[in-house]
């Protein structure tokens, strides 16, 4: 597996993500700058956390205009797996690659702490190593992580099983008290319609080694590696090759 970690000015979890893939998982990882126009033949694209462009204006609002995002759109449109973590999730929403938006936390403060998540969809390239309904523990660290979308969009997300992670009690029950930021319906992570673009606020790359709060994040990266070796990915790589010949092709969900 070769993972492209996109580096925007102000990204600050890029090194952590790179390390999770390269040092811990033992796969290849490269940094791809915001002004690059190709993804160096990567087969996983990772938009890391941080404060791209200072998060001035709105979190993720400026990053979507970066030249590299055109290549990311093409890659995603061809079915390539794209993982947006924290600021990466915000960027994906701002870029229209995922529905909804992330706004200021309910209590108006940045919040850093471990949370529990229930895995609701294990049929994505990122979650196949989790069991349906499994409760995992990952850290969050964000000021604008409150997920919002119109009611019909939320209904549609649920109907099509695109809500992948929800904040929950350690027992797995989805309660108001377990919601750290006021997200609609406790949503912590969603995928696009095709299922190959995942955005989530928690940080799997901070939960990959024994000394960390948890090791539950590692399975997310390992799952992508499994998926890339499987039949679904082989079909996608043909499409990607085809998409490489054309330009554009970004699809809004």
């Amino acid at each position, binding site marked *: 597996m070769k993972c492209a970690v996109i580096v925007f*000015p*102000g990204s*600050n*979890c890029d*090194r*952590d993500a790179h*390390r*999770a893939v390269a040092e811990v998982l033992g796969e290849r990882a490269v940094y791809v700058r915001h002004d690059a126009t190709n993804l160096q033949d990567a087969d996983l694209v990772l938009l890391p*956390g*941080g*404060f791209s*462009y*200072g*998060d*001035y204006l709105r979190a993720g609002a400026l990053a979507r205009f970066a030249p590299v995002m055109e290549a990311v759109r093409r890659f995603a449109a061809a079915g390539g797996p794209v993982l947006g973590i924290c600021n990466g999730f915000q960027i994906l929403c701002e870029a229209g690659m995922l529905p909804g938006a992330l706004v200021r936390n309910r*209590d108006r*403060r*940045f*919040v*850093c*702490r471990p949370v529990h998540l229930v895995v609701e969809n294990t049929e994505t390239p990122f979650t196949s190593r989790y069991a349906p309904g499994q409760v995992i523990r990952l*850290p969050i*660290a964000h*000021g604008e992580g409150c997920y919002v979308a119109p009611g019909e969009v939320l209904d549609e997300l649920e109907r099509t099983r695109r809500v992948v992670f929800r904040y929950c009690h350690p027992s797995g029950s989805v309660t108001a008290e377990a919601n750290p930021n006021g997200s609609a319906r406790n949503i912590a992570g969603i995928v696009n319609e095709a299922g190959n673009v995942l955005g989530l606020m928690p*940080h799997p*790359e*901070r939960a*990959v080694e024994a*000394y*960390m*709060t948890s090791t539950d994040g590692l399975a997310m990266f390992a799952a992508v590696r499994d998926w890339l070796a499987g039949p679904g990915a082989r079909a996608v790589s043909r499409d990607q090759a085809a998409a490489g010949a054309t330009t554009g092709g970004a699809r809004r969900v």
Partner: protein
Amino acid sequence: MSVHAPWRAMGLKDAEYERIRELLGRDPNRVELGMFAVLWSEHCAYKHSKRLLRRFPAKGEAVVVGPGENAGVIDAGAGDTLVAFRCESHNRPSAVEPYQGAATGVGGILRDVLSMGARPIALLDSLRFGPLDDERVRHLVSGVVAGISGYGNSVGVPTVGGEIQFDPGYRHNPLVNVMCVGILPRQRLTRAVAAGPGNTVIYVGSPTGRDGIHGATFASDQLGRETESRRPAVQIGDPFAEKLLIEACLELIDQGFVVGIQDMGAAGLTSSSAETAARGGCGIELDLDFVPQRETGMDAYEIMLSESQERMLVIVRQGYEEEVHAICRRHGVPSAAVGTVIAEPVLRVRHHGEVVAEVPVEALAGQAPVYDPPAERPADLAARQTLDISSVPVPQDLKAVLLQLLGSPTIAEKAWVYSQYDYEVGAGTVLGPGRADAAVVRIPGTRRAVALKMDGNARYVALDPLTGGMIAVAEAARNVVCAGGRPVAITNCLNWGSPEKPDVFWTMKEAVEGMSRACEALGTPVTGGNVSLYNEHEGTPIPPTPIVGMVGVIDDLDQAVEMGVPEEGLAVALLGETREELGASEYLAVVHGQVRGLPPRIDLDLERRVQEACLTAIRAGLIRSAHDCSDGGLAVALAESCLVGGVGARIELAAAFRPDALLFGESQSRVIVALREEDWPALEAIAREAAVPMQRLGSTGGRQLVIDVGGACAVRAELDELDRAWRGAIPGTMDPGGEA
């Protein structure tokens, strides 16, 4: 305003002005006078503290760079990786504009560590505020915490630890001390030095504006009614610019053509150019026309004295200017060649083609007056030290006392604060805030870690500065040991009132002596620090507050120890010994409203032995949790260990003396450890070997904390009840009506 003596408005005394005239052989012009005023301020020149600071032991095996540079550097035994660290105060700006004051404090200390060629990997904060029932204090707390959060989180350096205390003495004069730790490969070690005539002086970072002019002078002045009008002296921070600056500078330093680099912090362009030139024994010629500016019409005075943030001065070998600009451009950071290193030891400043200032470098950076102020023991000290313990009633309900202490803001759980800090960015945090006596951060690429702690107890210092100074260092070291670290070196901030008051200065002198003795006894040299004087509000000084920033080393991540009791069925032991000492305690202050008496005694040799025994046991894998007894004594320490771990304990103590002293007294050199029963003999052997008293306190288990004294139940409390008092106190005050 003193039209005829403009130096007074700039904070210079008449005699100091005369000295400047002597050094120059003429009257200084306005620009030169401004430059002297900032560089000769207490903040930059340490005029009242220099002689005292020489007392600090600065040498040690592990010290690579000692005091006098932007940060200390130690060899942590991690091969080629060195550790740089320093702390600094941002008290005055935070009192006036809490968000920006705290934010720019973080920005400044990051650049100090960056100046050594280090990548910052951790931040800590030591904060002091007035009582939380004061609405203005709550405003300051919210603002300072938000400022640290807003800057540190964005710049991507984890805020892994710190401490907060509340005391009426800080009501108008909060303290914001910030510590940064960075790592660097040995070959990247850089100094803030301008050398090699012909080399180019390059300005790297954000354009200069009119903010923060005379900030260093302000930082050396008192707060009072006019303080609000000092808001323009507070700088504005931009963490995004800082993030880009850090990446650009690290890449620059890696290229090998950087001769020296220094933060343009206090006194901006003036101090960075004068100080680098002074260290290099040469001069600098600056042309202000080339300085990037974000406002029009700035004059030389404003440009030289601006404290705009996120700027560095970089001295590069002649001929490499284009490489520097190319790297900066790629990172989106402005850069401009603004001057040249010259052999003649003067700082010569041109603006619009004219020389606007020409001053010998040594006069600015080396010849500020050094004072030896008179020191006098405070007249009322003996009275304050007197405590007739028999006049203090022993409370009937000791459980109520425990609840009251757990709910007092200084002892209460601080998650309301630290959950606003990203303490895990960088993915190196092993033990973040609230989990151990010290924060533990991995040294990237190794199994080693640093254990970090900031600490200080002003009440002890106020009541016996010599002992208080010793305890400040000893307790920080003990905390590092409890987390599994070997204490290596310290940095410090000395926060005091006016040194021109003999009683204030005496306290400082005694405290420095105490700190020095403890550093010598524990083998932890002082690699640098910062002095913040004149912390007074309308003539009343703050409590004397030395803050120690201790760095320790953990050889293997697996040896990091938490404070929370991890499981049931463990034995609980006390290393060290409890004496009947109630003076200067948190218990006496909170429960009896008395701030008096002598602080607990400290025997530095016993302290060293307790720490040695604890560390030996940790390294032998015997210790399942460790926690220092400090504010609130044995009972509070036990409760904290139980609450963090979520496991109860049953404790039995002999009734040696009055139960409140037994439970809440703050005798020094004590550590509570939990261990497996089968490891008991091994720990006993270690304690015996080190001649450390060791006592069985009880065992862990259940959902209650039960403490029997002399066979009778003194405290029996459900963990849930203790938890509500401890965790609920600060959210309950800061967000009344919100979720506790």
